[in-house]
C-alpha cells in the first residue's frame, strides 16, 4: 500500500513538473492502475492546469489525507466510465450485429481504451431474447433502465431496430443519456412530419434532443430506390413489404415516390415473413407484368426467398431491396444466381470496401483484425463509437465527463471526419451524410452500380 502510494505520488509530481501542462502526453500516460486515488489525482491535475498553485496545494493536502483530497476537488473526472451498446445479439440478426460490435470494439481499441486518460469500459448488451429470436421490447426497456441506473454509463449505442428505439428513446431522453444509433432508419424517430402527428416529440419528454444517428433515413433511401426503378425504364412496379416497421416504412416511401415519378404501382402487398416460399406471389407478379418488384424487407424477413422464387417461377421483373439486405448473408441465402443481374440493393452509404479515406483504413484494419469482410453496418457501429469517443474526449478536455457534458459534445459534432466521410449532426440529430448507393451482385460479391448524393 505504501509503495503504491509512493509510486502514485511520484507520478503525480512528474505530471506536475511536466511542461506540457495537463494535456495528456504520451510519456506520462500511466499504465493501467487500480488505484482510485491515482485517478482522482490525475483528474485534479488535468482540470486545474492553469492554476498550478491550487493543484500543488490540493496535492499536498491529498498526500496528507485522502479524504480531504476527495472533498477539495470539485467535480473530478471519474476513474472509469462506460459506454454500452444494445443490439439484438440472439437470433437472426446476429451476423450483422456481431460485425457492428466488432466495429465498436475497434474504435475503442484505437483510442487505447481511454479518453483523456479515463478508462472507458464497453459492454455489449443484448436486446433480444431466446423466445423471440429477435429484439424484445421488455429486454430493450430493461436495458435502457439498466443504462440509466448505472451512473458510469455516459453513452448508449443502439438500437439496431427502429421499433426498439421507440421503446428506449423516451426513457433515455428523460434521463439525459445520449443515444447514438448505428442502425435505425425509420424517419419518424427524428424528423417531424414524416411519421405520426406526435413524432418525434413523443420521444423527447425532456424537450431536448438526446438521440442521434449516423445512418441516413429511409425517406432518402426509398426515394433513391424509386428513382433507380425509373432509370430501369419501369412503368409498372409491384410493391411488397414485410409488415414490419422498417420494411413497411421504406415501402411506403417507395410507393409514394414511384407514383410521383409517374410509375404505376400495380399492387401493394404485405408478405408473411415466415412462409416457406413465395411462389404464389411470384405467379401473381408474373401475371401483373410488372417490370420492377420492390420488397421492403430484410434478410431476416425472407428477402432472399423472394429473390429465389422470382427466379424459380421464371419472373423477369427486377427486384429492388433496401439496405436491410445489404449483407453477405443475403447473397449466401439467396445464392448468387438468383441475384446477379436481377436484384438491386440500395444502401445508405457505400459498401465498406469502397469507403474512402478513413473508411478505407477502417476496412483494412477490420479485415486484418477479424479475418473477414466487415458487414455493411460494421462501419456504422464503428462510426457511432468514434463519434461518442471523440465527443467524450472533448468533454473531458472541457473538464467534465458527466452525461450532460457528453451529450452536449455529441450534439455539437460538426464536420466530423470519420469512416463514412465528412459530416455533421443536424438539428434533429440526423447525419448530414446523404450518400446513397445502389448495388448489385456480381460474381457472388456486391458491386456498386451507382452512388448518389456524395
Amino acid at each position, binding site marked *: 500500500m505504501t509503495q503504491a502510494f509512493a509510486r502514485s505520488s511520484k507520478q503525480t509530481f512528474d505530471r506536475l513538473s511536466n511542461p506540457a501542462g495537463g494535456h495528456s502526453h504520451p510519456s506520462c500516460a500511466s499504465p493501467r492502475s487500480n488505484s482510485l486515488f491515482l485517478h482522482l489525482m490525475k483528474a485534479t491535475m488535468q482540470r486545474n492546469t492553469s492554476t498550478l498553485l491550487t493543484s500543488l496545494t490540493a496535492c499536498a493536502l491529498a498526500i496528507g489525507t485522502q479524504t480531504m483530497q476527495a472533498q477539495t476537488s470539485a467535480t473530478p473526472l471519474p476513474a472509469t466510465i462506460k459506454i454500452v451498446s444494445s443490439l439484438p445479439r440472439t*437470433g*437472426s*440478426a*446476429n*451476423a450483422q450485429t*456481431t*460485425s457492428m460490435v466488432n466495429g465498436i470494439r475497434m474504435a475503442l481499441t484505437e483510442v487505447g481504451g481511454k479518453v483523456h486518460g479515463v478508462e472507458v469500459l464497453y459492454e455489449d448488451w443484448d436486446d433480444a431474447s*431466446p423466445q423471440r*429470436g429477435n429484439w424484445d421490447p421488455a429486454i430493450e426497456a430493461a436495458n435502457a433502465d439498466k443504462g440509466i441506473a448505472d451512473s458510469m454509463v455516459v453513452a448508449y449505442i443502439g438500437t439496431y431496430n427502429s421499433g426498439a428505439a421507440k421503446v428506449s428513446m423516451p426513457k433515455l431522453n428523460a434521463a439525459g443519456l445520449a443515444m447514438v444509433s448505428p442502425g435505425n432508419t425509420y424517419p419518424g424517430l427524428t424528423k417531424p412530419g414524416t411519421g405520426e402527428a406526435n413524432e418525434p416529440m413523443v420521444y423527447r419528454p425532456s424537450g431536448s434532443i438526446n438521440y442521434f444517428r449516423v445512418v441516413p433515413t429511409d425517406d432518402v433511401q426509398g426515394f433513391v430506390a424509386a428513382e433507380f426503378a425509373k432509370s430501369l425504364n419501369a412503368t409498372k412496379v409491384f410493391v411488397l413489404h414485410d*409488415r414490419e416497421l422498417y420494411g413497411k416504412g421504406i415501402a411506403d416511401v417507395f410507393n409514394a415516390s414511384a407514383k410521383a415519378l409517374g410509375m404505376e404501382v*400495380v*399492387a401493394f*402487398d*404485405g*408478405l*408473411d415473413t*415466415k*412462409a*416457406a*416460399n*413465395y*411462389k*404464389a*406471389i411470384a*405467379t*401473381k407478379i*408474373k*401475371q*401483373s407484368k410488372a417490370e420492377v418488384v420492390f420488397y421492403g424487407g430484410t*434478410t431476416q424477413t*425472407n428477402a*432472399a*426467398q423472394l429473390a*429465389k*422464387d422470382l427466379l*424459380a*417461377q*421464371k419472373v423477369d421483373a427486377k427486384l429492388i431491396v433496401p439496405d436491410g439486405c445489404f*449483407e*453477405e*448473408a*443475403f447473397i*449466401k*441465402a*439467396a*445464392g448468387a*444466381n438468383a441475384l446477379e443481374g436481377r436484384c438491386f440493393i440500395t444502401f445508405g452509404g457505400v459498401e465498406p470496401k469502397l469507403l474512402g479515406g478513413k473508411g478505407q483504413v477502417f476496412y483494412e484494419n477490420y479485415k486484418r483484425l477479424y479475418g*473477414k469482410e466487415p458487414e455493411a453496418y460494421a462501419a456504422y457501429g464503428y462510426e457511432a463509437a468514434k463519434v461518442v469517443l471523440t465527443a467524450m474526449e472533448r468533454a473531458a478536455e472541457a473538464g467534465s465527463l458527466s452525461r450532460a457534458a457528453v451529450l452536449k459534445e455529441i450534439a455539437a459534432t460538426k464536420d466530423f471526419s470519420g469512416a463514412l466521410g465528412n459530416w455533421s449532426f443536424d438539428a434533429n440529430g440526423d447525419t448530414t451524410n446523404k450518400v446513397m448507393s445502389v448495388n448489385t451482385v456480381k460474381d457472388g460479391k456486391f458491386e456498386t452500380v451507382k452512388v448518389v448524393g456524395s
Partner: protein
Amino acid sequence: MFEWFDSDVLLQQLLLGLSNGMIIALIALGYTMVYGIIELINFAHGDLFMLGSFLALTLVGVAMNCGIVDPELMGASSHWWLLGTLVLVCGVFCGGLNLCIDHFAYKPLRRASKLSQLVAAIGVSFIIVNVGLFWGGLPMDILGGGGAAAAPKDFPHLVSDTNLLGEESFVVMTWNDVVIFVVTIPLMIALTLFVKFTKLGMAMRATAQHATAARLMGVDVNKVIAATFAIGGFLGGAASVLYANYNSTVSFQMGFRAGMDAFTAAVLGGIGSLPGAMLGGLLIGLVRAMSDQYVGSEWTNVVVFSLLVLILIFRPTGLLGLKQREKV
C-alpha cells in the same frame, strides 16, 4: 390488371398448392402418428425437420467438395441418385433422432401429465433450434456459414429447373414439383399399407385405440411408441429434403412455420387419422396458394385459420376424424 379468372394462373396456383401441400402433409403425418399413440403434440417435430434439412445441406456440401457432384451442374442437370440418397439418409437420421428424443425427453414423462410432456417438447424444440444455429455456423465453405450462422442458407437445386412445359409456357412446372409427388405418394401408400397390414402396424392401431388394452394383449407398447417416433421422424426427414430442394432454402428458424402448418393440417384432417393428415396438408397448401393470389398474402393466415375454425364448428373432429364417443 389481375384478371379474376385466368386459367394459366389458376393452374399454376393449383400446382403450387399441391406441391406445398404434399410437403406439409408429409410432416403432418409425423404429428398425427405421435398424437394418435400418446396424445402428445410433438412441438419439436417441426424443428427436427429443420435439422434434417441441415444434414441434407451439409451432405450436398461434402459431395460438392469431394467432387462427387459438379457445383456447376447444380440446377442444370438432375442428380437423382443424390436426391434419393439424401431422402433416405435424412429420413433415417431424423427417425433415429426422434427416437432418441423420445427416449431421453418424453419417455420418463409417460406417466406425468400431458402438459408436462408438452413443455418438455417445447424445451426440446428450443434445444434443437440452438443446435440448428450452431450447425449453420459450421464452416461449410461453399454454402456459407461462420459468422452468418443465423442467416438462411441457399440450398442448391438437385434437379434440373428447366420448365417441363416449355420455356414459353406461363405455367412453370419443373422436376422440383414432380419429385415431390414421386417421393411423397409412394411413401404415403407404403405407410398406409404398413399400418393396415403389418403386425407392427396393427399393434400401432391397437395402441392408439387403447394403450392399456393393447398392453394386456401382449403388445409391447414401448416398442410401438418408439416405432411411431421413428417412422414419424423418417417422414419428417424425407420431407425436409423435399422442402429444402423445392424452396432451395435452409434456415434454423424454418421449423416453426412448417410445424405449425403441419399441425394445422393434422387437426383439419382429424388428428390421429393418417388420410386426414394427407387431406389436411393438401387443403392447406391449396388454400394458401389461392389466398395469396385472390385475397392478398397478408390475409393468408387469417383465411387459413378462419377456415379451420369454421370447419371445426361444423365437424368438431376434423374432416376425416372419427366421431369420438367417450367410453363410459
